[in-house]
C-alpha cells in the first residue's frame, strides 16, 4: 500500500528517479571495453592437439535423454546430437560441396548399402574395425538388437510413423558377423529409404544391455527405467559401453554435459580435443552475456546483433550463421469453419504468397541470417520461385476473382459464385477478406516479419490480425483437425518457424507434412496429386520425382512460404577450427581443434590441456 508522503519522502523519490536515469545512461551507453580473446585471425595458426572447448546449448535446452532410442517427448535436437556422439548411426547425413545433403559420409559405420530385387531388399555390411569401449567388436547382431527393440516397442519409440520403419521391413536377415539384409514390403527409392528410414538405425551393445534370449519388451522396459535416471547418466555402467568418438565424463541434472574422447574409437574421425563442454542457458540473454565476457568458445547471438558482427570479429571471433536443411512457412488451416472456404481458393493463396516480400524480410528483418523459402523442399533444391513478391499481380488476382474494396479499405466479395471471375465456393456476397494469424511470441525477428506481412496484406486490402502466444501454446493449438472439432475453430493461420518450421533429414520428402493425414500436416492439406507425387518420391529413384513434387506444391501454395532462418547465428573463437555446421543439425566436435600462433600456445586452446 502506498504510504502518505512527507517532504523528505518526496525528495527521496525525486532522487531515486534521477538515480534511475543516471543508471540507465551508464548501462546503455558506457559499458566496459572487452579485451580480445585471441589475437589470431580466422585462418591463421598451426593446429595443436588437446584443449577444452565450451559450446553453448540453445536457450532453455537441457539435455535429458541418453538412451539412443528416443522416447516421445525426448526427441529434441540436442539430445539426439549427443546420443550420436556416443552411439553413431549406420549412416550420417552430411552436406556435400554443392550444398546438398547426402548420406555418403566417411564417418558412416557401414559401407554403402546395396539395393536389389527391384529395391525390395537392401544389404548392409558394417565396417569391421569398430569396437565397443569394452573391446567387444561391433557386429550385425548389434544392429538386429536395435531392430528387435524397435519392432517390439514401436509405440514407445518417438520416431515411429505407421507403415514406415519398422512396419515396412518384412524380415531382418543376418548374413554374417558384419552383414545383414532387410527384406522390404515393396520397392523403395534407395535415396529416400537410406535418408528417411535408415538414419535412425544404429548398433546397440546387446552383450552389455541384454541377457541371451531375453524378451525385447522386458529389455526395453529395463533400459527405459535407467534412461529416466538423469542424475546417473555419467555413473550408470549401462551407459559406459559406447562405440562413438566420445564418452560421457559428466552429465548434470542442470544440463551440463562434459564429453571426453573414447580411446577405443576406431573411426576415421578421432577427436583432437581433450574435452568438450556443452553448457545450457535458460535464456538467449544469459548466453549472450557469457559470450561477451569470453566464457564460451562456441556460442550464438540474436540475428539483431548481426549488424554488430564487427565487434565480435575485433574481439577474436568469427560470426557464421548455421543454416538448416529446412523450410519455413505460415500454415493456413484449410478446415477452419470460418476462413476455410477463403483459404481453400488456390488463387487466394497465390495472391497472399505474392504479397510476402521474402527478400526484404530476410535482408532487413533477419539481418541476412535467413533465406527465402521457395517451395516444399530446401531452396537449394528448387529450380525457381513461381510467386516472387509482386503486389500488382496479387491485386490483379484478387480483383479478377470478384473482390472489391469496401468502405473500410478491406476487400469484400462482390461476385460470389464458382465461375470464372468469381470469389469461389463457400464465399458469400459481401464477405470480408479478413484472417487471423496465431504466431509464436518471444522473437523480435518473427514479430517484425509478421508486422511486415500484415502491412503488405493491408495495402492490398487483406485484413490480417496477428495474435502472439508462446511457442508451446501455438504448437498445442495448430494441430491437424476436422472441421467439426472445436480446436479447428480456434485457429485460422499459424506460425511456429522462428527456428525454422520443418527441418528435413537428408531426403526432403513430404510424407509427414503435406501428405493427406500426415502427422505434421497441420493445415490439413489434402490433394490426390500431391499424395501421388509424394509416393513417387518414396518409391522411385528417378530424380524427376522430387522435382515434380516440389514444382507442384510451389504452385499450389499449401502454406505461405516465409524466409527460413538460420538455426542459430554462431560466434566461434578464431583459434577453434574444424567446426562444420551440419544443416541437419548434427554435431561433430571430434573434428574440432585449436590452433596456436608461431609455435606458441594460443590464447586459450594451445597446448594439450590448455584452458581446462
Amino acid at each position, binding site marked *: 500500500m502506498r504510504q*502518505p508522503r512527507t517532504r523528505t519522502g518526496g525528495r527521496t523519490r525525486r532522487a531515486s528517479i534521477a538515480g534511475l536515469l543516471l543508471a*540507465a545512461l551508464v548501462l546503455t551507453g558506457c559499458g566496459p571495453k572487452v579485451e580480445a580473446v585471441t589475437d589470431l585471425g580466422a585462418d591463421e595458426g598451426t593446429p595443436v592437439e588437446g584443449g577444452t572447448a565450451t559450446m553453448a546449448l540453445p536457450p532453455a535446452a537441457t539435455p535429458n535423454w541418453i538412451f539412443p532410442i528416443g522416447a516421445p517427448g525426448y526427441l529434441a535436437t540436442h539430445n539426439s546430437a549427443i546420443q550420436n556422439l556416443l552411439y553413431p548411426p549406420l549412416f550420417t547425413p552430411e552436406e556435400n560441396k554443392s550444398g546438398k545433403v547426402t548420406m555418403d559420409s566417411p564417418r558412416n559405420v557401414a559401407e554403402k548399402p546395396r539395393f536389389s530385387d527391384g529395391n525390395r531388399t537392401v544389404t548392409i555390411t558394417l565396417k569391421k574395425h569398430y569396437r565397443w569401449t569394452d573391446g567387444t567388436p561391433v557386429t550385425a547382431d548389434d544392429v538386429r538388437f536395435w531392430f528387435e527393440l524397435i519392432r517390439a516397442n514401436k509405440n514407445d519409440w518417438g520416431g515411429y510413423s505407421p507403415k514406415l520403419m519398422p512396419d515396412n521391413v518384412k524380415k531382418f536377415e543376418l548374413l554374417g558377423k558384419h552383414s545383414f539384409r532387410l527384406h522390404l514390403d515393396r520397392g523403395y527409392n534407395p535415396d529416400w529409404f537410406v535418408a528417411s528410414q535408415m538414419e535412425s538405425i544404429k548398433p546397440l551393445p546387446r552383450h552389455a544391455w541384454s541377457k541371451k534370449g531375453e524378451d525385447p519388451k522386458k529389455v526395453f522396459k529395463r533400459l527405459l527405467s535407467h534412461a529416466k535416471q538423469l542424475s546417473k547418466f555419467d555413473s550408470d555402467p549401462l551407459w559406459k559401453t559406447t562405440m562413438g568418438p566420445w564418452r560421457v565424463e559428466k552429465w548434470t541434472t542442470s544440463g551440463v554435459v562434459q564429453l571426453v574422447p573414447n580411446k577405443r574409437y576406431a573411426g576415421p574421425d578421432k577427436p583432437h580435443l581433450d574435452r568438450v563442454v556443452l553448457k545450457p542457458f535458460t535464456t538467449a540473454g544469459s548466453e549472450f552475456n557469457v559470450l561477451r565476457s569470453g566464457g564460451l568458445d562456441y556460442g550464438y547471438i540474436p540475428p539483431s546483433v548481426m549488424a554488430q558482427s564487427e565487434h565480435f570479429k575485433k574481439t577474436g571471433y568469427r560470426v557464421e550463421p548455421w543454416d538448416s536443411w529446412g523450410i519455413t512457412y505460415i500454415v493456413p488451416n484449410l478446415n477452419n469453419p470460418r476462413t476455410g472456404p477463403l483459404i481453400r481458393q488456390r488463387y487466394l493463396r497465390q495472391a497472399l504468397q505474392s504479397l510476402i516480400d521474402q527478400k526484404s524480410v530476410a535482408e*532487413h528483418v533477419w539481418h541476412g541470417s535467413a533465406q527465402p523459402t521457395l517451395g516444399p523442399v530446401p531452396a537449394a533444391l528448387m529450380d525457381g520461385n513461381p510467386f516472387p513478391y509482386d503486389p500488382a499481380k496479387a491485386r490483379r488476382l484478387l480483383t479478377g476473382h470478384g473482390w472489391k474494396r469496401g468502405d473500410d479499405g478491406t476487400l469484400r466479395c462482390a461476385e460470389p459464385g464458382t465461375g470464372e471471375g468469381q470469389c469461389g465456393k463457400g464465399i458469400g456476397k459481401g464477405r470480408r477478406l479478413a484472417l487471423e494469424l496465431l504466431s509464436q511470441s518471444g522473437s523480435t525477428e518473427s514479430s517484425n516479419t509478421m508486422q511486415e506481412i*500484415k*502491412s503488405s496484406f493491408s495495402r492490398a486490402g487483406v485484413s490480417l490480425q496477428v495474435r*502472439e502466444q508462446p511457442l508451446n501454446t501455438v504448437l498445442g493449438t495448430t494441430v491437424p483437425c476436422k472441421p467439426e472439432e472445436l480446436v479447428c475453430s480456434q485457429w485460422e493461420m499459424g506460425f511456429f518457424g522462428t527456428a525454422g518450421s520443418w527441418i528435413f533429414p537428408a531426403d526432403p520428402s513430404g510424407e509427414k507434412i503435406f501428405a493427406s493425414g500426415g502427422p505434421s500436416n497441420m493445415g490439413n492439406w489434402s490433394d490426390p496429386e500431391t499424395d501421388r507425387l509424394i509416393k513417387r518420391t518414396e518409391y522411385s529413384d528417378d530424380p524427376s520425382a522430387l522435382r515434380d513434387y516440389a514444382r507442384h506444391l510451389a504452385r499450389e501454395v499449401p502454406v505461405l512460404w516465409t524466409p527460413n532462418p538460420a538455426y542459430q547465428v554462431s560466434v566461434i573463437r578464431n583459434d577453434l577450427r574444424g567446426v562444420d555446421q551440419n544443416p541437419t543439425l548434427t554435431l561433430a566436435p571430434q573434428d574440432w581443434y585449436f590452433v596456436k600462433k608461431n609455435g606458441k600456445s594460443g590464447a586459450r586452446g594451445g597446448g594439450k590441456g590448455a584452458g581446462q
Partner: protein
Amino acid sequence: MTAEAAPVSGEGPVGSGALEEAGALGKGPGAAGGSGAGGESGATPSLARRTLAVFTRNRLALLGAGVLAALLAFCFLGPFFYHTDQVHTDLDQASLAPGSHGHPLGTTDVGYDMLGRLMHGGQTSLEVGLAAGLLATLFGTVYGAVAGYFGGWVDAVLMRITDAALAIPALFLLVVVAAIVTPSKPVLILIIASVAWLSPARLIRGEALSLRSRDYVHAMRLMGGGGGRAVFRHILPNAVGTVIVNATFQIADAILYVAYLSFLGLSIPPPAADWGSMLSSGITYTQVGYWWLIFPPGLAIVLVVAAFNFIGDGLRDAFDVRLQKN
C-alpha cells in the same frame, strides 16, 4: 475515534483531515456544509483558492503539471502537425539514424518514423494509464468507503478479499491474464485496474473508519439518513483529498504497468504501439548502438511518471490545512 479506527486512520493523508477539520472548527464559510447537512459537500471557493495557492507554491508540482501538459500536447496534438504513416512498415527505411531522410528521431527496425511513433505510442500509454488509474481509484474508493463505513462483517469480508488479492503478486497476475486474452486498449485498462484498485480500497477504508464516527455523520443518521447517503454525501466528499492525491499515483503506476506488460511482450499488437513496447523492441538493439530506439520512449516513461508524482506531492501539500494561509 474508535479503537478499531485508530491503527488504520493514520494511513490516510492528512488532507482528508483538513476538510473535516475545517468543517468542524468552522474556519471557512460554509465549511460545515452550506446545506446545513453536517459534513456534506466539500470545498468552498476560498478553500479552493487556498488549496490552489499552496499547490502553485510547489515549484516541482508546477513543473510536473507543465511537463504533463507538454506531453499531452505532444501526443495528441503533435500528429496534426507532424504527419507519419504508423500503420504500414517500410523496410527500405528501417533503422535509420536520427536526422536522416527527414526523420528527426530516426526510424524503427521496420521503418516507422520514430518521432511519429513516440506520439502514437504515447497516446496509448497515456490513455490506458489515465483510464486504468482513474477506474482503479473510483472502484477502490467506493469499495473502501463501504467497507470502512459499514464495518463489522461487511468490512471483514471485503477486506479479507482485498488481503487475499494483495497476496498474489500483481505482475504474475497481469502476465497470466494478458497471456489468456488478446490485449486491446479496453482489455488492458480492465486488467490493470483489476489489480490496482486494492491500494486505494485499503487507504479509503481507513479514512472511512475515522470519518464515520464524526458528529455530522451521527447527526445525519439520527435524522434518518441511510448508509448510501452517509457514504456518498459525507464519507467520500470528506476523503476527496486523499482520493485525488492517490489518483495521481495510481495513474503513474498504471502507466508503469502498461510499460511492464509491453516489456514482457504483452502489448497491443502492432501496428499499435505504446512506450513500453517501443522500449522493449529497442532493447533488442542495445548492442548495435541504436540508442534512438531506447532513450526517447524510456525518457518519456520517466517524464510522465515523474510528472504525476510531482503533481501528487503538490496536491498532498495543497490539501494539508496546516500549510494553508488565510
